[in-house]
């Protein structure tokens, strides 16, 4: 009389005590509060945006002037300026961040490594207004010479063209100040540490076995970096750059200090005047009228959607590369 039944595992249900339940509910409540807070940012900005979007419709994105007193409001030039400043920041910042990350993770003497990591973190902690001061008072007087040189030699490319004669003996210096180029340089100082930190942490995880295998096969240090570290860190490079892009799109104070507002659609980044979404909001908010306020809130909503999209893509890339899914061992 043996039982033919197979052994079935006992149900391992978890029973929480009252204290545990209270604890779990409380923390879950806090977590949900933060979640609601975040959701509320999007909801409130979106709610405030409805009247404006209904009133101006698609022209809110195609109109380039910002004249609320004449009921003409549009974001096209502002969005273009935002992208220009962010692109300048990335074009300058990306190679520098990549090289710094490679230097710290691959070349720096081991004893100094943690110091360099600390310095990069400190660079990220420096308030953006200080980079703004530096960009406006220190960088700008020097950079206009670079701008002039670029305009002299590459002025035939529309991007580097300036509506003045850069070769004149007394050249119009004011034509080269307060440009998207200079603002982008200041913003690059803020995105470099951000991108560098992400890239460095991914490079540091490149598998030791593969590194040693490359070296044992006779690769030089650069050969090892090119064949092991960079392919492994690809996700981190892309993700870090996207994070940097998100930051560059939303940077406010440094840009506000440097640029002089201009609402024309133009691609010549060296020339005076541009406008970015966040600088527009921060600059006009103080003395804005009721109608203009809701237009500014709408601009904020557009910025919210834009950066949220960029950051989410970045997070996907960074998480994928950190989980080690990119390696095939």
């Amino acid at each position: 009389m043996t039982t033919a039944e197979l052994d079935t595992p006992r149900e391992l249900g978890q029973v929480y005590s009252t204290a545990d339940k209270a604890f779990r509910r409380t923390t879950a409540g806090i977590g949900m509060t933060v979640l609601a807070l975040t959701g509320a940012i999007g909801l409130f900005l979106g709610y405030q945006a409805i009247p404006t979007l209904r009133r101006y419709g698609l022209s809110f994105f195609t109109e380039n002037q910002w004249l609320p007193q004449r009921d003409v409001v549009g974001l096209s030039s502002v969005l273009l300026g935002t992208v220009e400043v962010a692109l300048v920041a990335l074009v300058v910042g990306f190679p520098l961040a990549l090289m710094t990350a490679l230097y710290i993770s691959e070349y720096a003497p081991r004893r100094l490594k943690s110091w360099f990591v600390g310095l990069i973190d400190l660079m990220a902690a420096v308030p953006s207004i200080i980079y703004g001061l530096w960009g406006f008072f220190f960088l700008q007087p020097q950079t206009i010479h670079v701008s002039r040189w670029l305009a002299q030699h590459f002025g035939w490319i529309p991007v580097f063209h300036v509506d003045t004669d850069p070769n004149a003996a007394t050249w119009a210096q004011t034509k080269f100040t307060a440009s998207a180029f200079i603002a982008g340089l200041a913003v690059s100082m803020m995105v470099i540490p951000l991108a560098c930190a992400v890239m460095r942490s991914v490079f540091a995880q490149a598998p030791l076995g593969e590194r040693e295998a490359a070296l044992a096969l006779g690769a030089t240090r650069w050969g090892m970096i090119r064949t092991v570290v960079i392919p492994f860190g690809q996700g981190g490079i892309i993700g870090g750059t996207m994070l940097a892009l998100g930051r560059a799109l939303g940077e406010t104070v440094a840009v506000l200090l440097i640029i002089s507002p201009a609402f024309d659609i133009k691609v010549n980044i060296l020339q005076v005047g541009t406008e970015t979404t966040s600088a527009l909001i921060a600059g006009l908010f103080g003395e804005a009228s009721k109608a203009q306020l809701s237009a500014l809130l709408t601009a904020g909503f557009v910025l919210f959607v834009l950066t949220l999209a960029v950051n989410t893509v970045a997070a996907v890339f960074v998480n994928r590369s950190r989980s080690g899914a990119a390696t095939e061992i």
Partner: protein
Amino acid sequence: MTVVNEGVELTVTGNPPTATPDVPRALATRSFDDRASWMSAMAGALGIVWIAYQITGWSGRLGFTLLWFVVYLALYAAISRAGNPRPVVFDRLAAATVAGGAVVVGLALLSTVSYTVQKGWPAFSQWGNFYTETAAGVRPTAPLDQGGILHAIAGTAIMVGIALLISLPLGLGTAVYMTEVGGRAARVVRTVVEAMTALPDVLAGLFVYATLILVFHLDRTGFVAAVALAVTMTPIVARSAEVALRVVPGGLREASLALGASQGSTVWRVVLPTARAGLATSLILGIARISGETAPLLIVSGASTYQNLNPFAEPMNSLPLYIFSAVRSGQPNFIARGFGAATVLLALVTVLFALARYLARPKRGSR
């Protein structure tokens, strides 16, 4: 061959083990050729560029440095090519380029800090009045030995304090929820919190404006500004605290639970104390971040010139706002004060940062 091993005599056949312990080979060896190549290329490039500048009459420090670097790379490649195979040449060029990029970033950081301190020193070193007086009744053109930034320092301290009171429980609670409770909802919270940390800071100001000021009709007081700062700070604290909590070994939690402790007291008595250093670091970095936050304050904060210690009435000034209005005034003395305040802010951030690094330092001997 016989080897004495703890008093037992063993007879080993086959390959005898080496008597000396293995010494790892020094990997980073540099030959004389390595060192001499880059040094001579550096010196040669300096000479060539200097002569070129003398002949052509070019000017500009930036161009000089850039040209020097380019000529250096070319010379370095040529010198290396003389006695080395191609891969070594590429290796050296890559090393030189990478180091060059790192040097540029280092110099940029150095120039930011030194320029701010240098411009700020005249005001920063007015020990008699800069830290003990406010800007009340002081004209922007007044000399630097009149007026100070006490009101801005006090305002920043109060705002950061209130923001801390709000965001510490929220951030820490969220971190505990994400690590200790978990589940699908917690994953959603984590994703959202991560997206929040990278959100433009100006949006926190807009949000608080759209809610507290538009809906609840509050004035632009210190409290409203502090709420905006708290909105910025909460996700930062939550995310970095979560990282600190995640490294607490699970064995400690299980030991506590096995002794019959409830989950709440496990967290309170075991997890949080273990992660104390990491939590302090995350908190300090959060403080450092919001003390220099300007963009939300431009939207929701008024700015006073007098001392206002009440966060619920009248506007309140803060260091970043003071700096912003000072440097935009166009008055040399007021700009100098702005740089003085910027130096104070930079010093504050650096001290907080050093403190955080000190707390988070790897402990010797433990585990």
